[in-house]
């Protein structure tokens, strides 16, 4: 096993953890405000398609990124309307969003971008080596030779931590996710907060999709999320609903993904399928381990009716 393989593995691990991290932080925003989003898979797909469509029709990757963000925000808004205002079951709506995402992206992917060999290739998100740091042997190549979204996604982690733990708004979000009635009696608008979190989560889902389509493959392929929306959910759970933990879990799962692609070159005999199962199994173990320890926001998946609407 030589150094080049290790460096390329590390680089790939980081590259593959970026979509997980972005989607994970997106789920974290919703989760912290008490919304269970199992529809991330569909949201990521829509973001992935929007990115390529935007980049292709407006000829720039910036347009693609913007399209992803807008598509994500829109689907987040729809999701918020259904689960917050309507109060419909979050699990069922999440499943519907997944089906919707898969269906819409497949139909429009074919009609707008073509399929198979003829599929449209779009301008990808550029890799920017960071001066000086990128020249560090081995480490520089792996860590500082990534694309723009990768840097942004890792910067997002401290930003989200700062937001959740140091700002008034972050405190409000956590309060709403734990005990909406208590927050309401103190004058916090529970629905408004949850809407905001859903839209932010949707935007991040869109960017996560974009990081898959424009960041890794430069094109859209059907069902390209391939379970990453659910792995992102795993990362949030395994990361104990914190930004740092989500990042660590994303790196772990991204690393597992990169590893299974390189099993043969590493001479490892474990079938790759077991590596692919790894995030899911770990999540189940973590969930059984945490249960009763109150890591999950207490009001998860419980619809809330505002005090001001109750008396009528």
């Amino acid at each position, binding site marked *: 096993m030589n150094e080049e393989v290790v460096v390329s593995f590390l680089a790939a691990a980081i590259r593959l953890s970026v979509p997980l991290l972005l989607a994970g932080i997106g789920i974290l925003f919703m989760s912290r405000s008490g919304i269970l989003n199992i529809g991330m898979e569909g949201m990521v797909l829509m973001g992935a398609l929007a990115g390529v469509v935007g980049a292709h029709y407006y000829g720039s990757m910036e347009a693609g990124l913007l399209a992803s963000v807008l598509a994500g925000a829109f689907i987040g808004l729809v999701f918020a309307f259904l689960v917050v205002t309507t109060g419909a079951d979050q699990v069922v709506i999440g499943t519907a969003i997944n089906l919707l995402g898969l269906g819409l992206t497949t139909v429009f992917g074919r009609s707008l971008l073509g399929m198979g060999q003829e599929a449209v290739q779009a301008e990808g998100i550029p890799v920017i080596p960071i001066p000086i740091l990128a020249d560090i042997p081995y480490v520089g190549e792996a860590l500082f030779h990534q694309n723009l979204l990768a840097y942004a996604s890792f910067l997002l982690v401290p930003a989200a931590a700062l937001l959740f733990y*140091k700002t008034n708004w972050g*405190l409000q979000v956590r309060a709403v996710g734990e*005990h909406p*009635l208590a927050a309401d*009696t103190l004058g916090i608008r529970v629905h408004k907060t949850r809407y905001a979190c859903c839209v932010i989560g949707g935007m991040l889902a869109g960017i996560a999709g974009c990081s898959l389509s424009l960041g890794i493959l430069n094109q859209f392929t059907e069902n390209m999320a391939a379970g990453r929306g659910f792995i992102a959910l795993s990362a949030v759970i395994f990361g104990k609903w914190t930004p740092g933990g989500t990042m660590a879990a994303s790196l772990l799962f991204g690393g597992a993904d990169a590893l299974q692609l390189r099993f043969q070159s590493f001479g490892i005999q474990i079938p790759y399928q077991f590596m692919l199962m790894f995030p899911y199994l770990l999540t189940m173990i973590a969930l059984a381990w945490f249960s009763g320890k109150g890591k999950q*926001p207490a009001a998860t998946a419980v619809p809330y009716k505002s005090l001001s609407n109750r008396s009528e």
Partner: protein
Amino acid sequence: METEIILETLELVKRFGSFTANDRLSLAFRKGEIHALLGENGAGKSTLMNMLSGMLSPDEGQILFRGRPVAFASPREAAREGIGMVHQHFMLIPALTVAENVALGMKQGRSPFFGYKRACAAIRELSDRFGLDVDPEKRVSSLSVGQQQRVEIMKTLFRGADFIILDEPTAVLTPPEVKELFRVLRTLKENGKTIVFISHKLKEIREICDRVSVLRLGKLIGTTDQADTTSADLARMMIGRDIQAPIRRTRESGGRVRFEARGLHASENGVRLLKNISFGIREGEILGIAGVDGNGQRELSEALLGLLPMQAGSVLLDGEELGRRHPRRMTALGVAYIPEDRQKDGLVLQMSIEENLIAKEYRSAPFSRGGIVNKRKVKLNAEEQIRKFSVKAPGPGAPVGRLSGGNQQKVILARELMLNPGVMIAMQPTRGMDVGAAENVHRRMLEARDRGCSVLLISTELEEIMTLSDRIAVLYKGELLDTMDREEAELDRIGMLMAGALPNAAEAIIH
């Protein structure tokens, strides 16, 4: 200064449907006093306080605060004016720290950042000033109940409250914690805060309050200086003078003891729920357990049924000790149970009347055979019970949730009496019913007694206890005080026991 009025209500009315919870209440609260609001369950205390704190809005009448008419659309608006409320069930977020809970939703200047250090400093300062002894950096989930309550008080102070309402603050506290709370309340009073203290515990009211307002059935009975009134007077005002136990056929004494509890102890997370409870009920006897809500009634019934684990004690049926108990076994032994909350514990609201009626016997003939339900028999049974108990319902297939409360209770009663029970545990069997419906339930229970059933009646309505019981005991803080025969029971004495004024202590007060 002493008599400056800070808050006044003028002819305040609140209705829920056709039920009038507050009937033209006019009260005045003086600045810097501790004002008790006394009354039985359902007297309208909480409704009044919810209106003052912005949780509910009045239908008629006016609230004057600092001489100005006010109308609050939300608790936040009330808080902005300086009115704070500490709910009986705390509105705290266990996963957050004290400082986060206290400062939640407050704007600190224009900065988007949460000034954690500043909030902590402010809380420490308030904590020292009022002797609250609250550590702002502790997580709320790690605090004791008494400490959590002080955090709630801190929340109101942090928002600049001058008028603080405490809804049954001592219901959840241990005696040392009560002492601590009273110390805090006195400090608050010295600092010019007005405190409304909702309670039905006379002893505490006498200890801490300056004036007392008594509510009964939504009406104000009167406001008096605490020092000028005896406990007996207050008890009478609270319960009403007009209670007279109806003349009823007395039970022939004798008969063997059918249902017995010996030394029941139960506690949860170190909090004592039941303490050394022992009683025996003879055949054809009703033992009434009086007491104010939240003194262990629910725990007692659940422990007897096997839903709440006990630390010590035994339950005997016909002299035989019952080991591990659970509801299904108790049913098989002929123990009927009427739970307190019929909608949550007693019925499956979406299921039909006929299905709810077989909830205790669906596993046996004639309702099922070989695991298959006999629908015809179930329906015939329902039709029979509906007729027998004159349940007002569209038909046996109607969901039980569509019936009125009284009719729902009839369904439960019918179901339990179908067991032909030897023992019946009834909790608050007429809660929320009107006189006619309650009478009906009472008649059924007396009939069961006359057939030889041993009934444990747990009720917070003293009148009900007095009407039905052959013997009466009082439950106070998880302990049974003094069991007495109905004939010897005096209303005043029971009222005092319920309020936690122990016999000798009470004597001293009355002289």
